[in-house]
């Protein structure tokens, strides 16, 4: 019970911090002081207080978009285990639901973007769906591989299953998986090298350009949803990459949060040392990731 409460609390409150950490890291690399860690929270609070501007072209779809996205992401967040504690909702086959929930959120984000009738947002939507369509098989390959390893169909087992033994047993495939997962993580959350969250040229954006017209609480919801998504996928990655579990519940939570923070830092580092890829190169990278994960599956299946 406590676990569930903690789970919900962490899932609800923790995500924006990741953004903060990433920002701080990047600032550090750039030799700046950078915004405080809790800046994202301030932003959110402020956004929820702001009034909003709607374009005349928009319809109810535009308003519904962020909401659906957020709710889908929340459910997804309830599906995954955090720090080796089972997820609140967990049943056999939930990994598919997990994947499809992201599909749902994507669907609504993109149609909300198209609702504005702006060519830039259309462009962003097109890129979003295309790239994530390429990223999807990767996710599945990884999940299947893990399922195969853990002989189970529930995310909780799948993700809490990895242990040092397994890393020793099938290290190669696990390594491949981790790599593939990380790439997917970056792509799905539209981070560098796929997309630059805080670029200023709409032509080069993917995710940011889709939400140009959202303002006020809606934009807040979107930012929060994005953070949540980062958190959820990050959690998956951490679970795979960090197979250590002490018996102690609270300790596990601590380890988990630490791991998440370090993941955020890693992302920050990656973002500050790498440059954004050219749009045309992105599909190649994604397909590469798919191949990695497929290879991992092969290794496990033989």
């Amino acid at each position, binding site marked *: 019970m406590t676990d569930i409460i903690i789970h919900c609390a962490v899932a609800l409150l923790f995500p924006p911090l990741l953004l903060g950490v990433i920002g701080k890291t990047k600032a550090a690399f750039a030799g700046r002081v950078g915004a405080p860690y809790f800046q994202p929270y301030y932003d959110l609070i402020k956004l929820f207080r702001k009034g909003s501007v709607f374009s005349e072209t928009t319809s109810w779809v535009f308003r519904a978009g962020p909401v659906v996205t957020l709710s889908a992401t929340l459910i997804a967040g309830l599906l995954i285990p955090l720090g080796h504690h089972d997820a609140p909702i967990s049943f056999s086959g939930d990994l598919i639901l997990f994947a499809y929930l992201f599909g749902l959120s994507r669907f609504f984000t993109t149609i909300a973007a198209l609702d504005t009738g702006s060519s830039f947002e259309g462009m962003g939507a097109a890129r979003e*769906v295309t790239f994530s369509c390429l990223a999807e098989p990767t996710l599945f390959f990884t999940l299947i591989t893990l399922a195969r390893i853990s002989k189970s169909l529930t995310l909780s087992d799948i993700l809490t299953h990895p242990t040092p033994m397994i890393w020793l047993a099938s290290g190669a495939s696990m390594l491949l998986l981790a790599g593939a997962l990380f790439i997917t993580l970056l792509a799905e959350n539209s981070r560098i090298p796929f997309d630059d969250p805080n670029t200023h040229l709409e032509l080069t954006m993917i995710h940011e350009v889709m939400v140009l017209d959202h303002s006020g609480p809606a934009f807040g919801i979107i930012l929060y949803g994005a953070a949540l998504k980062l958190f959820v996928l990050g959690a998956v990655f951490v679970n795979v990459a960090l197979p250590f579990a002490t018996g102690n519940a609270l300790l596990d939570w601590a380890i988990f949060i630490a791991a998440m923070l370090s993941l955020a830092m890693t992302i920050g580092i990656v973002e500050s040392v790498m440059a954004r890829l050219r749009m045309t190169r992105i599909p190649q990278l994604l397909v590469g990731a798919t191949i990695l994960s497929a290879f991992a599956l092969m290794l496990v299946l033989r």
Partner: protein
Amino acid sequence: MAFSGVPGLALHHPARGQRIAAFFVVIASFLGEYAVITLLNGSTGAVYQIDWPLPFGPALLSVDQLSIIFLLPLFLVAGCVSVYSVAYWPARKHSSAGKLTLFLGIFAAAMVIVVMARNSVLFIMAWEVMALSAYFLLTAEQQSAEVQRVGTVYLIATHTGTMALLAMFSLLRGTIGTFEFPLSHSLSPSVPVASVIIITALIGFGGKAGLMPLHFWMPGAHANAPSHVSAMMSGVMLKMGVYGILRTLSFFDALPVWVGWLILLLGAWSAINGIALAAGQRDLKRLLACSSIENVGIIFIGIGLALVGMQLQAPYLVVCGLFGAFIHIINHGLFKSLLFLGSGVLIHAVGTREIDRMGGLARRMPITSPLFLVGSLAICGLPPLNGFVGELFLYVGAITDGIVAPLPLAALVAPVLALVGGLAVITFVKLYGIIFLGVPRSVEAAHGHEATPAMTVPMVLLAAGCLVAGLAPVLLVRLVTPAVALYGDLAAPVIAKVTSLVPIVPLTIANILLVSLFLVIGTAYLLRLRRLPRSRGATWGCGYLEPTARMQYTGTSFSEMAINVLGAIVAPNRRKPRLAAAFPPAGTRFQYTVTETVLDRILTPIFEVVGLAFSYLRRVQHGQLHIYVLYIFATLCVLMFWRN
């Protein structure tokens, strides 16, 4: 027998008759549904025998669990469509309305008989009647050259398929010695012609079902038929092909494993290829037709999994595959008909099928647009709608097997489905977004109007079906369980054991949770909005101050990127112009069209070559009388010297 009520609408006067006909169909469908439900609840379908004076033995009609799977959507769609047609194809506007109504009735009745026939000749007759009436339905606007062309292509395709079926049933007759269908699992595949039978069946039925590479007739035909007809054809008629294959395969008790793999591969190919084609379409109904290819592909993936499973005694595969296939059959009947009816409304309102000429219709069509959205979500297989249920089964089947059973390869199905799902999202985001959202891209779109209740009510019905089936998947499972039990001849406990693996109840919970969450956040958000100041302005043009409607992203440009990535599959025809002058860029336009590879690049050339060869052979008939006499003489000599 309730089914025979369907042709009741064969009377065709102008408008009034149309109404009466529609009324009849609705009654008939209600009776039909009722009968089906009663049959579903235990009571096994009675067998009707007609002693016709044809030399093919008695004509048997009966209904078993397998038939029911197909009868359910058939009656539902038939009822909806007939109501819809009254408003969509009014007799006072179209002279062809009478003909259309007549053939619609015959069409539906023929399909009912197809599903019920237990005598191969009766089956073939009903089958061909169905195909022909479909031809007359889709050539309703026979004045236009395009309609004519696709009609001809369709007719030739379907008739060729029928010939394959004739061969197949003759072989079957030769094997079992009677024209009646053998009992299921009664034939051993070791009979010499078994593989030939299966191949011919695949050709004949697969062509009708739109299985690649025999799909070439479909996009054109579905695009050019009146929308409610396309709804019938795509929602129901394709399934007849599926039914045929299922029925044929059910005759054999243990099929060679290659059959399963073959069907699985064909299914996967159709799924990926079909949706990739769909992504590139500019024509609303063509797009829907291509996505039908995809869905049929998914169904066949399920069947293939099941067959492979049967061969390898892997109950997981069998059960999940069958469940997936059957559920998807029903679902596709629901949402594809919904979408086609919706497209009919659109065409009515805008007067074009060009996606790129629509836009901003959501606000002009407050009823149609949410319905269409439901359809799109469902067809993408997104929760909480029904499309997800079928796919879930397939996933679970594939992955479960990847884990426990001896057939890891099946696990590869999952990524394929994932890719298909992703592409489907591209396609339907484009479809919905470009058509209903943004600003109108043409004058017609600007003056689009909502349809009459007669057209919207059936759509509401279908959409409701999608929602209910999605939120309570247990209903679907309940519907198809008997069929699965019959088809895979599995014991109930096995099925129960496997289905327990598939999260039906949790899924329901999750779905409800999702919806409620959506409502909570939504209301919260709206309340918040109400309290905060709001203002309206133009869309942020990223610094460009006069954005016009023509600057919006079109469907073409939306899917251009995806098409580039998928170029290998869909082989688009690009027309890349060279810029006339660097500045100002003179009127140059870049465009690409996705081609019907099979039709345009393979079949048509073959036809031309053959035609040429024939025209040389035709020289034999040169009009020289004395040479003709010589022919006679030559024949005489040949026969003289021909010692057998």
